[in-house]
């Protein structure tokens, strides 16, 4: 459905996107995962035709973006990271207007508008102006405006930023539902949990490049010689000494628990436990996990996804 090949984008001397190549198969949810500034939005903006690329090629549904821009645009729907709705218009007016831009008219436009508003749970509030909506409702309206014309490829650029967990879950359920109906989705996020939960395949981006891509098992296999130990600790934790233990690459604190990213070495766990006991640190819980995306990102880039 979507194919990018060697995309490059420069801003003055800075390389915002460097040789990005990936493809999105019809009917799948493909994730672009990376921290802020990784180049995700720039990549999206190139694909949607918002900005010009310096090098590379983009094919949407087989059509070349450079040669058949309008045809490509008809196939895509965009849900931008920033809310892109008219606050003084009603929900219905917003959806109807954006639907009309894609050639919808008459009964078809009305039908699509109604169905889309029902889908995002805003039909009851269709006559209310967008400025009266909560943040979560505005996000849902933002999505509705992007899918009213039933695009073949829906591109969502960090659609859950800054909203409450309930609205976030609603959005994620909606995306899953859309995908079940056959829509191809390109989803960018810096939330690991979203990518893990939603995406069939994920490309991990950092500093304008894709550092790895594949399904979650494939990405895990890239770090198979690593293991990840999570511990709940009480007392003064000797961080510097723990880092000195052979094979320990990173110690991350997540939700008050210490997560050790380690290249597997003999007696490694024993050395860690000995050190903690020696410093009278109480270990209240311990777990050895499969690597999650955060771990994979950390191992591949040396940085935390949350930085």
């Amino acid at each position, binding site marked *: 459905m979507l194919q990018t090949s060697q995309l490059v984008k420069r*801003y003055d001397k800075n390389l915002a996107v460097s040789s990005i190549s990936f493809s999105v198969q019809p009917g799948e949810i493909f994730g672009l995962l990376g921290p802020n500034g990784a180049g995700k939005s720039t990549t999206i*903006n190139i694909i*949607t*035709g*918002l*900005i*010009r690329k310096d090098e590379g090629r983009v094919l949407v549904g087989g059509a070349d973006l450079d040669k058949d821009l*309008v045809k490509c*645009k*008809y196939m*895509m729907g*965009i849900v*931008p990271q*920033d*809310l*892109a*709705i*008219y*606050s*003084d*218009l009603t929900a219905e*007016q917003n959806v109807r*207007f*954006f639907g*009309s*831009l*894609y*050639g919808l*008219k008459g009964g078809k436009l009305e039908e699509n508008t109604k169905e889309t508003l029902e889908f995002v749970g805003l039909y009851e509030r269709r006559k209310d102006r967008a400025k009266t909506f909560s943040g979560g409702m505005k996000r849902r309206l933002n999505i509705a*405006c*992007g899918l009213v014309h039933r695009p073949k490829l829906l591109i969502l650029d960090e659609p859950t930023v800054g909203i409450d967990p309930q609205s976030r879950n609603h959005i994620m359920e909606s995306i899953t539902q859309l995908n079940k109906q056959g829509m191809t989705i390109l989803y960018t996020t810096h939330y690991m949990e979203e990518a893990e939960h939603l995406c069939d395949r994920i490309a991990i981006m950092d500093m304008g490049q894709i550092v790895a891509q594949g399904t979650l098992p494939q990405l895990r296999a890239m770090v198979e010689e690593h293991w990840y130990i999570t511990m709940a600790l009480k007392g003064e934790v000797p961080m510097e000494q723990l880092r000195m233990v052979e094979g320990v690459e990173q110690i991350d604190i997540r939700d008050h628990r210490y997560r050790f990213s380690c290249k597997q070495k003999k007696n490694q766990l024993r050395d860690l436990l000995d050190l903690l006991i020696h410093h009278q640190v109480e270990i209240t819980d311990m777990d050895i996990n499969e690597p999650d995306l955060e771990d994979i990102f950390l191992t591949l880039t040396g940085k935390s996804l949350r930085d």
Partner: protein
Amino acid sequence: MRFLKFLKKEILHILHDSDSLLLMVLFPFALTLVLGSALSGAFDRVVNMPQISLPIVSKGDMQSSLFINQGRSAGISFHETSLKDAKEEAKTGESDGYITLDGKGVSYYTDNPGSISAMVVRTYSGIFAKQATMANLAAQKGKLDLIAPRMGNYVESQGIDLENEPSSFGYYGITMLTMIMMYGAIQAANMMDLERKERTYQRLKTSPYSMNGVFLAKSGVSVLALLVQAAILMITNRLIYQVDYRNMLMVTLMLIPYALFCGGLGLMMYQVLGNARSANSVLNLLIFLLVFIGGGYVPLSIMMPGAANIASYSPVGLINNGLFDYIYKNDLASIIRAMAVTGGLGFIMLAVAYMLYRKEEGSNRAAGY
């Protein structure tokens, strides 16, 4: 079809901004009232003559009777009285002075020699005295036919045709109209900025709808909105202040090129300066200057005699003068010229705005960087 949908959306935005709409009508309406009332004197062509009534002390002879009777036709009412009473009236303020008429001549006593009534009495008395002298000379020469004074209407006076000049309300009924249309340039800039402010520019740009269509819709609605506001203001002025526009439909049509000028100015400033805040700052200053030079606030000829010609250096002045000539003199020459100049400038500015707008396509600025 999509273009009509876009037009409808733009109109909805304007209608939803009721505060601005109200301001665009109420503001010039209120200014017309304030300026029209405050400066009504500057536009008046008629000076009201006071009623003149003076006591006269005379011998009661034929000359006195002639003086009194002919004074009546000059608008002066004399009543005979004694010198003592005449002085008393002048002292108490019942009259502005008094006249004495004797064999030596006419004497006028007043404490207010600079007043209009004093000037009239002095003029009349002077003429009467000279005529009397001429009559005496004629009698001495035996020219009896020249003795009878002829103080008839030997001076023919014609007033200025007041119907060809606007009153103060008539003046501001036009200048406030063109002024508020100039402020429509700010409205046009803000309309273009709306997409950036609401971040909907991204949706428009990534949709298959042509960017030409976006620009056309924005320009079209900004011009249309100005004309509708002008029509509302004209109707309001006509109803409340009885401002004469001769033919409101014609005036509205005449304002189309000017509306193009105002809209084009706003759109061009926005594209050149890149943001609404800077554009609004510059436009506020520019509009004030153009309206001021065009005589929008006060006729320049009042402040600086001989400065009336400066107004033609401002498009606002051109349009104002053109409308005055059409409405009050039924003369189309200057309005046609004003339409050509403002329409031409408006078209050029729109073209510049469009070129800069198109240059944005695919630029980094389009993505909000």
